[in-house]
Every structure is written in structure tokens, then in C-alpha cells.
């Protein structure tokens, strides 16, 4: 409870700050806030842990009642938008990062800087990983705090590695090494050499962004005014993926099948978010030796992993509810909150203290080596860039359709496919 006490005290100190009149320092009257949450929309650990968090929070804040609204992740923006239009009360929302731009620009998510007293905000940000904080920022303003987020890691089946004569202690670190290992696996076993979560509508473009960026490419430029996925560096990365596919190393299965193949021990390597770790561990238990390493890079270039998952954004208009939502946000992104999220759901903590301090998860982390590559990547993590404007979904979908076609299609003209799609998506930018 310590951080909350500290921040509450700090909030008290900064009462006179500019935004203080818009948000009361504490909640005196009972208030109910809604929390649009996608973990609640599935049965299992995520929902249980979320309910646990809500219970703890309500116990600590008797005046605040939290109403969880379960919405599946792919529907969350639609639903928030519909509810805002319908005049429903929307307070705290678990926004997937791809929709962050839309949430901020169109739906009216508040930048924390606008509603939270500056000192209180600064105090709360203390101890948070800087790269992690950047995930929820657009143009330097914080619209969301990374909540359930994770990084891409390369899972591998050490048993298969041993079986085909590869060294499980030295997993591939670059795409060239992946290709090399993939060929060995392809030639000496029936297993899928490389599965991934790069393609498929529910995958979105997040993992692809990281892969292209690792070759110093990208899908869109820094100020989000021009599409760049057909530029030479990106093109080269896509061409590399095509070569892997042509060699029969990278397969084109739907996202779920790839996950299940890995879980069942039928895939040797699997590039995917660390969020699926729990599911893989359950599949591997008593079945095979599951391990993980960091995301592969291109040659000597340092890999530039990005994040998947969601951040929390505040939509409340009423000051008291803004305060209540902010309190909830602070609580779930506190050391206690992240402890539960990391341990029970399997996402990453935004606070290193959680994994370093024995008070929290230090001991637990040492028992869970799979978390290591994840933690390692936290220091050089880069944000998943949301596509801008009202057509953000269409841009990403068109782009990913083209890249999938370029990697797995019958047409060898990778540059042609990508350039055409780039021109097309360029027209959809605001």
C-alpha cells in the first residue's frame, strides 16, 4: 500500500497546482466508475486476476465502486465509441495500442497531463520504465499507461533442437541463424520449423512493425504522415520473410493454429508475444522442454522489439470520477498491481522494482526463466505505432494483407505488391 500512501500525500501537497480544481484530491462521496476491460471477457486467469484487483482496490477505497464491463479486445473501441455516442458512462478503458491514436484523437481519451496534477503525475511515474511509459504517449503526452503489455520473444522447443542436433543453449539470435536452424529442423524432422504470430487479422500489425523496424525499416514515418513499408529497408525485411516461407521454414497458419502447434510440441520455434506464455507452459508441462529467447535481429543491427497489449486510458468527464479512475489506474500500475498482473496473467511489469525486489516477484522471476528475455528487452523496447486518422483499421488491414501476399503469395514481385499497397494506404491517411 505504500506507494499509494506516498502519492496520495504528494497529491495533497500539490493541491494548489493548475489542474487541481478540475480533479478533487480525494473521493469523499460514493462514486461508481466503469472499467471497460477485455480480460474480463474471457474465462480464466485474466478474469480472475482482474476481479481480484478490483476487490483489493474497492477494499482500499470504500467510496469507489468499480463496475467491470467485459468486452472482447477486437470490439473494445467499437464498444467504447458506441457507448460514448449512446451517452453511457465510460471512465477507464483498457485500450489496445493500435487504437490509441483513435482513442485520443477521436474518442476523447484524456492526456493524463491535462487532468492529473503535475506533481502527482511525476511522483507516480517514478520507478516506471521510461520505454514503457513511452508506449502510451502520442506527441509527448501520455494518453495511456501501459497495463497488460508484453514483448515479442522467440519460444523454442529444446527437445526438438536436441533431436535434430542443434544446441538449445545457443538459440538463434538473428534471422540468418533462424534460417539456418530452420533448414536443419526442416530436413531432420516433421516439425514446423518456425511458427509466428505475425500474420492474420487478429494479429494486427504489431509484430510486423517490430520486425521491419529491426532492419531499420518501419511501416510509417515518425510524424505519421507517410507510409514506409515499401521503402528499401522494410522491403528487404519482407523479402527475407518471403525467402523463409519459400524455403518451407516459415509457415502460414492462422494465429490460433500456430499457437496450438507450439503448445502441442509440433513447432520448433515460435515468434510471438510473451502474453501467450501461460498457455504454452500448460501445453509443455510434462510434454517437452519449452524455452524462450529475445526477438531476433538482422545481422549486426540491434533488434528493436515493440509491444503488444493494452494501456489504460481515462474517458471520464466528471472530476470526481476522473479522480476515482486515476486512483484505480494508479493502483493497478503500482508495484502491487503489477505483481498480480505479472504473476497471475503473465504480462510485464512497467516497474522494475516488481521483478528486482524480493518483496514482490524477485524470487518468482528466478523460478520463471521464460520471463528473462522479456525483461531484457524492456530496456530497448519501442512503442507500437498506431495508424493515424479515422481509417486506422483499414490502413493496417490493407498493409498487412499486402505483406502477407508478398511473403506467402505466388507472385515474386514483392516490391510491386508493397508499393501498390503503400500508395493505396497513403491515400487513407488523414
Amino acid at each position: 500500500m505504500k506507494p499509494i500512501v506516498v502519492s496520495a500525500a504528494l497529491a495533497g501537497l500539490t493541491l494548489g497546482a493548475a489542474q487541481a480544481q478540475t480533479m478533487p484530491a480525494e473521493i469523499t462521496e460514493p462514486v461508481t466508475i466503469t472499467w471497460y476491460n477485455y480480460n474480463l471477457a474471457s474465462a480464466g486467469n485474466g478474469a480472475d486476476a482482474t476481479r481480484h484487483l478490483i476487490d483489493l482496490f474497492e477494499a482500499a477505497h470504500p467510496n469507489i465502486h468499480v463496475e467491470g464491463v467485459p468486452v472482447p479486445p477486437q470490439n473494445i473501441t467499437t464498444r467504447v465509441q458506441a457507448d460514448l455516442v449512446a451517452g453511457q458512462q465510460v471512465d477507464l478503458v483498457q485500450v489496445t495500442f493500435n487504437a490509441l491514436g483513435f482513442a485520443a484523437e477521436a474518442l476523447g481519451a484524456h492526456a493524463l497531463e491535462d487532468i492529473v496534477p503535475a506533481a502527482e503525475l511525476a511522483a507516480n511515474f517514478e520507478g516506471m520504465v521510461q520505454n514503457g511509459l513511452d508506449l502510451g504517449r502520442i506527441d509527448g503526452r501520455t494518453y495511456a499507461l501501459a497495463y497488460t503489455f508484453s514483448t515479442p520473444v522467440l519460444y523454442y522447443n529444446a527437445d526438438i533442437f536436441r533431436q535434430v542436433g542443434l544446441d538449445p543453449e545457443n538459440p538463434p539470435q538473428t534471422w540468418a541463424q533462424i534460417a539456418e536452424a530452420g533448414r536443419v529442423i526442416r530436413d531432420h524432422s516433421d516439425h514446423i520449423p518456425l511458427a509466428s504470430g505475425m500474420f492474420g487479422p487478429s494479429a494486427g500489425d504489431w509484430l510486423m512493425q517490430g520486425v521491419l523496424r529491426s532492419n531499420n525499416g518501419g511501416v510509417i514515418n515518425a510524424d505519421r504522415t507517410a507510409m514506409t513499408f515499401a521503402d528499401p529497408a522494410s522491403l528487404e525485411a519482407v523479402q527475407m520473410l518471403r525467402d523463409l516461407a519459400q524455403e518451407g521454414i516459415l509457415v502460414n497458419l492462422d494465429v490460433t493454429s500456430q499457437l496450438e502447434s507450439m503448445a502441442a510440441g509440433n513447432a520448433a520455434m515460435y515468434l510471438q508475444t510473451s502474453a501467450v506464455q501461460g498457455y504454452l507452459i500448460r501445453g509443455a508441462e510434462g510434454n517437452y522442454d519449452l524455452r524462450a529467447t529475445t526477438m531476433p535481429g538482422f545481422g549486426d543491427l540491434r533488434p528493436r522489439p515493440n509491444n503488444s497489449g493494452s494501456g489504460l486510458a481515462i474517458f471520464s468527464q466528471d472530476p470526481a470520477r476522473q479522480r476515482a479512475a486515476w486512483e484505480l489506474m494508479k493502483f493497478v500500475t503500482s508495484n502491487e498491481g503489477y505483481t498480480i498482473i505479472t504473476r497471475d496473467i503473465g504480462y510485464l511489469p512497467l516497474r522494475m522494482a516488481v521483478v528486482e525486489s524480493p518483496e514482490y516477484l524477485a524470487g518468482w522471476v528466478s523460478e520463471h526463466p521464460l520471463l528473462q528475455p522479456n525483461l531484457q528487452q524492456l530496456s530497448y523496447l519501442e512503442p507500437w505505432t498506431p495508424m493515424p486518422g479515422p481509417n486506422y483499421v483499414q490502413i493496417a488491414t490493407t498493409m498487412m494483407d499486402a505483406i502477407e501476399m508478398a511473403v506467402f503469395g505466388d507472385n515474386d514481385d514483392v516490391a510491386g505488391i508493397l508499393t501498390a499497397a503503400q500508395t493505396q494506404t497513403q491515400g487513407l491517411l488523414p
Partner: protein
Amino acid sequence: MSLASVAPRHGPNRWSRLNRLVRPYLYILPAIATFVIWIYEPLARAFVLSFQQWNLMPTAPRRWVGLENYENILALPRFWQALENTGLYLLGLLPMAVLLPLAIAIFTQDLSGRTRNLYRALIFVPMIVPPVVAAAVWRWMLDPHNGIVNGAIGALGGDPVRFLSDPHLALWTITFITGWKLMGFSTLVLSAANASIDGSLIEAARLDGASTWEIVRDIRLPLLSPAILLLVLMVILLGAQWSFSYIHVLTEGGPLGSTTNIYYLLWQFGFGSLSVGWSSASAVILFVGFSLIAALLFWLKAKLSFHDD
């Protein structure tokens, strides 16, 4: 104005005439009101919105963009692929949802009551399974590594078949599942139609020297043609919607867009995100497109089955 002066003299008469005039409308009012409120009013609004760019938020700007939404949709690279796939779905669905049930209906008609009912009851079972469940179970059974179907293929010495991830197969797999679900319904409709054929026509044909096959060809099929046409019509108009759940759960339109039909594509680009312009234009395209097809089909149906009624 003359009502007051006329009412005393012609009152009852006038009322009963008014009553008679209004009565039919009163009977259909509940249904029509439902459709106007819940379907046609939104549709009309969608028509207007399809020429605008807006996200419904009262605070957001609302911009007239003319035909831009339509142009964007028609320019989608997947549009023509999806159109072609829609045709392929229909091509695959018609045998499963019409031909096979037709054969079953005709075959079972001549069986003893008990066997006939058993077969028909079993074939109807998929109809009652929720689509989400049907999709999940089939995905489970067709899994390349852990599915029972590939287990069987493996046991027979074959290589695992990637039913849902092979671009050449996925569409047919979805078609199969859609058809599997529909088969029972079509069988019942056709069986009902078949059972209502006047038995003496069949007897007359037997006396005239027709073999079983000739009876089917010359008597049953022509007399079943209205029911067959109705089913064909339903498959063409609604097939794309019926496959939707399975595409959504099983392949999300992939791999390489090979299972994307027009309905799913427009959903993905229009309704998947709440961009009102795209979704409204999509809706208008779907509605107008399918209405035109429906008009064409009804015209054809009237022309073809003129002698049956």
C-alpha cells in the same frame, strides 16, 4: 370540416367503412413497426451517412465526402478476390445445401417410416448446434496435428491435410462446414415438398411404364422445382451471411484472403472498426447488390416456374 355535420347521419356507416379500410393495416402494424424502427430507419440513415465521414461522436466534425467511401471500398485490392470467392462459396454450397438434400429427400421418401425418420432426425442434428460451437468442434477435428480427421488420414498413410490453412483448401473447408450445418434444414424442406406430391401421379407414371429414375426425372423433380428454386434462392442470397460465422471464427478470411467473401470483407473494413462512412457504404453496397440479385432471381423464378402454379 364537414365531419361534424355529416357524422350524425352517416356515422355508423362511415365508421364501419373506415374500420374496414384500416383493419388490414392494423393487423400488419406490429410487424411493420418493428421493421421500420429496427431496420429501415437505420438503413435510411446509413444511406445518408455513406456519403459522409463521421464517427458519430457529437463533438466530432461531420464532413460530406461524396462518393469517396464507395471509391475506397471498390479500390480495395481484396474486393474482386472476395467477389470471386463469394461465387465459389455458392458453387460449393449449392451441391451441399440443395443437391445432396434433394437426393436424401427422394431416397428416404421410399423407406419405411421408422428408418426414414431416423435418418432425417440424425441429419437435422447439426442444425441445432450453435455456430460458434460448430466452428470450434470442426476446427478441433480438422487440426493438422491433433485433429481426429488428420489422425485418420495419418493412420491410412496420408500426409496431414491443412484444411484451414491451405489457401487452396480453406474455402472449401468452410463451405463444407456451412453446408454440413444446412443439410438438415434443406432435407426437411425438400422432404416436406416431396411428401406433398400427389401419390396418384407417381402411380400413374408407374403404370405408364416409368422406372424409378424416370419418375424422379419426369415427375418428382419438375414438381419439386418450386422448392428447389426457393432453396437455391436462399443459398444465393443468404449463403454469404451463413458462412460468415465460420469465416470469422475459423480463418478470419485468410490465408491470403482465400476465404474472404464479400460479406466478410465489408464487415472487416466497415463494421470491424466503427468508421461510419465505410460501414454505411458497405451496407448500401451489400443491400443494393443483393436486392438486385434477388430481383433478377425472382424474375427468373417467375419465368421458369410459370407452369407450376
